[in-house]
């Protein structure tokens, strides 16, 4: 495992890292409720292209977001090998479709850098920081930004 800090008494956080295409991203482990395999979704009418639909997660209606498409990469073609990371963000439970979970990282606060300036504004909306682990750069995503905006009350 790459993370050497794992055993140290540290004041940082644990993150779950996952692969989307060639890139690696992570979310705070405290936001992750479970990780499960891909199951076919039920399409939602008039949903943005990155919302794959909803699945039944033990009685809860769970929207699934194609993280690749959401971040502006090519849309995923889901296979049984794909993984849904179920996260809780701002009271909503949502599923993020990723290629695979790659690591569990223990990081200290000083390892977390703010997103690089070169990133475009829109990307910055989803990326709240970058962790450098060994030679890898892992972007931390903000799960609460993954769903489309709620419809405002017509006013």
């Amino acid at each position, binding site marked *: 495992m790459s993370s050497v800090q794992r055993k140290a008494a540290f004041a940082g956080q644990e993150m779950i890292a996952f692969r989307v295409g060639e890139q690696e991203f992570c979310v705070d482990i405290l936001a992750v409720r479970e990780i499960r395999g891909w199951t076919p979704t*039920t399409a939602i*009418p008039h*949903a*943005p292209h990155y919302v794959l639909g*909803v*699945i039944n997660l033990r009685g809860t209606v769970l929207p699934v977001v194609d993280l690749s498409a959401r971040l*502006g*990469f090519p849309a995923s073609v889901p296979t049984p090998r794909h993984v849904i990371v179920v996260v809780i963000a701002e009271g909503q439970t949502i599923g993020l479709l990723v290629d695979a979970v790659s690591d569990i990282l223990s990081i200290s606060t000083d390892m977390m850098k703010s997103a690089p300036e070169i990133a475009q504004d829109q*990307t910055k909306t989803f990326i709240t920081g970058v962790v450098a682990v060994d030679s890898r750069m892992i972007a931390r995503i903000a799960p609460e930004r993954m769903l489309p905006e709620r*419809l405002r009350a017509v006013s």
Partner: protein
Amino acid sequence: MSALDEIRIVFFQECEEQLQELETGLTAMAGGETDADTVNAVFRAVHSIKGGAGAFALKQLVGFAHVFETTLDEVRQGRLDPGPEVMDVMLRSADVLNDLVAAGRDGGEVEAERTAPLLAELERLAGKGPGGHGGEDEDETPFNFDDLDFTPVAFDLGDLGDLDGGGDGPKFRVSFRPRPELYAKANEATVLLRELGTLGPVSTTCNADALPLLDALDPEGAYLAWTIEISGDVTEAQIREIFEFAEWDCDLTIEALGLADLSEIAVPDAGADTGISVADLLARIQGELTGAPAPEAAPEAAPAPAPEAKPAAEAAEKPAAGGEKKEEAAPVIRVELPRVDKLIDLVGELVTTQAILSQRLEESGAATTGSDLMNSVEELQRLTRDLQDSVMAVRAQPVKSVFQRMPRIVREVASATGKKVGFQTRGENTEVDKTVVERLAEPLTHMIRNAIDHGLESPEKRLAAGKPEEGTVTLSAAHRSGRIVIEIADDGAGINRSKVREIAVNKGLIPADAVLTDEETDQLIMLPGFSTATTVSNISGRGVGMDVVKQSIEALGGRLVITSRPGFGSTFTMNLPLTLAVLDGMVVRVEEDTLVVPLASIVVTFRPQPEDLQMIGAGQAVKVRGSTLPLIDVGLKLGYRTAPADPLTGVAILVEGDNNRRVALLVDDIRGQRQVVIKSLEKNYRPVPGIAAATISGEGRVALIIDVDAMMSDQSFDQFILGNEPIAAE
């Protein structure tokens, strides 16, 4: 949570019930039902609130309830006639009591200017009873709440001889020996003793003879007994009432002390206990001796029945003792709502799992019709359905609880607007899911305010229009085809359509040349930003318009429709689901997706025939049952396909929505009927136009439930696609 906190919570829950009881009773009394049962129920409601509030040292509440109760007692004793003026004070007092309970619960206070005038009026009423007890009533003495602390006061009877023998002596001697059960049921001897102190001057002696040595002491035992001598204008019934909840768990004797005893027993020094100075007491006694007749002691001077004989005797005496009618006698338990909801969730899961199991068995071919396996599956299905119905019934509540809050709103608005309003409710025992009941309060309040403020005319205008001076607002509830329909009707002026139209145009809500039917014009008042009040009044002009009311009703899966007849009034009709948890639906297929159409909206299903089809403009129409209706391709409307389907290969479902509007929905296939558990799509996602909610299908997948009324709207849903902007990769 500490035990005291829990008791506190229960107390306030009970207060809610008592306040409802109070409102019901007072309304009945105002309507002329002044029989003993009703009056007693009202009295007891206030009394119970006062008793509980004392335990939590809610001084303001106790004080008000005490005065209220005193006045009610005058009515109960037949000394005060519950005429309209009296009932008006009573009703307004009930409102204040409501506020005081709320303030007590939330840790606030009610401003004195709200309570003081009513206190004065109540006291005036209590004093003016034709029986003319006036000065000698215990209540004449201001009740000193600071003495309500839990400090037992021991009286040394030996000192009594020091006082000059006054005229009035103790009237009753109460021997009270609690048994351990009394404490086990969370009664408190202190509270009871203190309560006795509110009736009149008391002298209390504690008898500790039964107290064992420490090693023999049972910590949960009861060893102390008290003898209380009580004087003043007290009746035995009043004393009994205090011990009402405790008398089964204690030895209680109440001895009337005859007038003969007066010479033997000196006036007890009650000053330290009730805050009455000895001088005052003497002055009162003087007054009584010189002028007033002897207190009603004489007829009651007979010795009290032995405690053993008492329960039966009392039951006979006070038929309404419980304040409850016989039919309400079914035993009740209090259950925390989350527990019921958990149960409902689990049963919902069970229903889903059962459906999946049935489907899998059928698919596997193991269960053939008539086989033992199939019979068992059907039996399971029936049981599951029964179980679900029973569990849902636990949550069903009569709308009464929310209807009862409305008379108060009516009174407030009526007095603020200077209008005369008669308020009627009908069908208040109609049951609906608790969540629906709770969430009804706000829209109802608002609509009733509107009905009085905007709907009803001023008394002068009404008279000029040849109507009775008093306007009528009717609130009614009824079950209709699996839903609950709640109507608020007024007999006011109706909606002024030309004015509504003018405002809508001025505010840019509709184009100036829009052609609208009368009904369509009426619905304009529900548009956001619309307000017809020429002056923004305190009552309805609070920035919350009918649009918010409409939204909150739609959030419950309901519809709001306005009908109006100029000169005759308006009716606001809410049509709501009975429960937010289950729905009978028709399962249909559109392309590869399974959708559910609420059965309640479906009139008939049919296969369109070529001769019934025609094009109207760009849209398709179908002739059914003699009328030509739009044929809406669900797949196209919801974006499941981009080209219209051939109507001849599909199935049409004739649905009826609000305003009895009908259309035919075209789907690919019908798969059957099923009760489905409603799941929110909004909770983890967002509202989806055209979709009312989600459910779990027989295959264990999510299926969407169609919003029939949204499907009828001519609006394209495309404008709702938000957040569709692609994000450029880095």
